[in-house]
């Protein structure tokens, strides 16, 4: 106090200027190396730049570290680069997918797309003929029916796993997980063999919804189980202490407390099935006009529309497919973001 001079705390772990300069230099040299190697040798393309840059960078950093601090530090530096590559390689496809969908889909998006169906047009027609109204309404109907069927079952399963905890808890948790691995085509074949051939004998939206239900139940059940496990036991005990039966405790305390989490579970389930293609191809018949009745007649849907346009092959049809993909991805992203938003708000409380 009396001296008046204050001691500035040192941060020995911080990189010194010299260290930073070396790091920048290594980066620069690696970049240079990648450009020269690609220019000199016959290797060409993005992959070559990427590979040479990575190898040069990893080598240079490890050599520097080895000189400074020995072999352990060199290995550490090598793994640093590997780990960063892992993260970059994971992100590149997402960026590429989003970029191509935007680039190829936007030219096909117009107002008419959302007001017309394909009843009077084929996928190879010019783009201002027809639209995907039937596909959007179809997907919404399919998802709605699937929701009505799967939400009760999914949430009841989650309730069984968290509230009742009967003797089947272990097996059922195992089976729900196994069910989430059922290939979508198998779900489609199952509905085909169990419902479509023996009972209804015709394609309809309901058949598609039934197969989507099978795919959706495990997603909802597993997410809902996690959410219900987060509800503190105090709430359940308080409900019982007030004289509530288990039924009243669950219905009036546990479920309302878990509401936003359950909504997240449902939205994630919808995002999972909205773009499901294989069972839709087997079961719905893929009509070209708006069909408001899910119980009879072929039902169009976004995946079917994309599939049909893509297989038609002409440039117009491919543009249609990309536009359909853009709408589908937009839908999935909106659902996903709202699930995230609800989930994070719940965590913040």
């Amino acid at each position, binding site marked *: 106090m009396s001296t008046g001079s204050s001691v500035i705390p040192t941060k020995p772990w911080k990189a010194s200027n010299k260290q930073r300069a070396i790091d920048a230099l290594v980066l620069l040299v690696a970049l240079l190396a990648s450009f020269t190697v690609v220019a000199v040798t016959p290797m060409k393309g993005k992959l070559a730049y990427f590979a040479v840059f990575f190898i040069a960078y990893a080598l240079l950093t490890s050599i520097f570290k080895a000189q400074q601090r020995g072999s352990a530090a060199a290995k550490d530096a090598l793994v640093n680069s590997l780990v960063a590559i892992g993260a970059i390689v994971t992100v590149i496809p997402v960026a590429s997918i989003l970029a191509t969908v935007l680039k190829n889909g936007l030219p096909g998006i117009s107002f008419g797309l959302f007001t017309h169906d394909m009843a009077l047009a084929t996928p190879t027609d010019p783009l201002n003929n027809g639209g995907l109204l039937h596909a959007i309404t179809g997907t919404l109907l399919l998802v709605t029916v699937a929701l009505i069927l799967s939400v009760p079952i999914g949430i009841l*399963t989650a309730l069984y796993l968290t509230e009742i905890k009967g003797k089947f808890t272990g097996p059922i948790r195992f089976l729900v997980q*196994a069910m989430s691995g059922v290939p979508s085509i198998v779900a489609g074949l199952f509905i085909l063999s169990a419902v479509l051939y023996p009972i209804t004998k015709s394609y309809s939206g309901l058949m598609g919804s039934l197969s989507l239900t099978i795919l959706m139940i495990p997603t909802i059940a597993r997410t809902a189980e996690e959410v219900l496990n987060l509800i503190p036991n105090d709430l359940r005990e308080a409900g019982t202490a007030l004289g509530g039966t288990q039924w009243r405790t669950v219905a009036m305390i546990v479920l309302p407390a878990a509401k936003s989490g359950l909504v997240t579970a449902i939205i994630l389930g919808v995002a999972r099935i909205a773009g499901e293609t294989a069972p839709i191809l087997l079961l719905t018949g893929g009509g070209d006009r708006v069909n408001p009745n899910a119980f009879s007649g072929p039902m169009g849907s976004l995946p079917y529309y994309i599939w049909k346009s893509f297989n038609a092959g002409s440039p117009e049809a491919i543009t249609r497919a990309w536009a359909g993909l853009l709408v589908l991805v937009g839908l999935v992203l909106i659902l996903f973001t709202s699930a995230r938003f609800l989930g994070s708000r719940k965590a913040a409380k």
Partner: protein
Amino acid sequence: MTFTAIKTPTPREISTEPRRSDRVFRAIVTFGGISSLVILGLIALFLGYRGFEVLRQEGIGFITHSDWSISTDDAGNVLESHFGLAAMLVGTILCSLIAVVIALPVSVFCALFLNFYAPNWLKKILVTIIDMMAAFPSILFGIWGFLVLMPSVEYWAKLLHRYFGFIPIFDMQVPVYTRSPFVAGVVLSIMIIPIITSVSREIFSQAPLDRIQAAYALGATRWAMIKAVVIPHGRSGVIGGAMLGLGRAMGETVAVFTVLNIVFQINWQMLLGAGGNVASLIILKFGDASPYEIKALMAAGLVLFLLTLIVNGLANLIVKTTGKSGR
């Protein structure tokens, strides 16, 4: 003044028996809970029932032979039929193995990066991106893979063939690179990276903090810490995650169908443009299949169902037991 006897209410009988409302509630919830068991059972039952005729006729040949042909007379009666899944099964396994071999190191490194290297803000963004990737519809991966990814992958395949052609699996006699199992494997690997990454991340984040800090306190570098603490802790969990990815890759239909050329011949050369896939076979043959062939497709579906069920079941067991031992 007369006292009328005050009628005291009889106290409620205390019992541990659940009330009627509770019994109904429990019955309904249990019923809902058992539905997954019922659905899985019904799937196996119905596919088996529909495919029984074909399975009985073909016997073990259904999974050991590889020709798929049916000839009918004009009235639609079956004259001769051969259904064998061997090429398709080999193709399915080959494609999904390629996918796992590519995806596993990437995912493990990515999970390590997320848990031990990335600053918090970057971690949040990356986790969101990876979760988003898991929600992308498979048709998107299929069309993107066909139009955008396939040209690059064919180029990589040429490089592999030129420089590593002496290894049998990279060898091929006819240079056809288009729509090979390798291309399908790369597309599948991108689809299963999010699954393996999130399972590994979960497992790694359960690595005991005290041991991590002990390793640092002893002067370990980050890699030395990971090697000494995180990897021994998470090894089997990562294997479980990889098997979950394998199960997903085996059942994938549309994405594989768009990028794979289906040929009814067993082919282990991953760069050659001739592969097989059970799920894609069903989509391919379904459109113009006769009733008898549909039965064969149902039997193929049953085989696929059992295969994925076994792989997934094993994977879940492994992940679950590691999760427990970690705590």
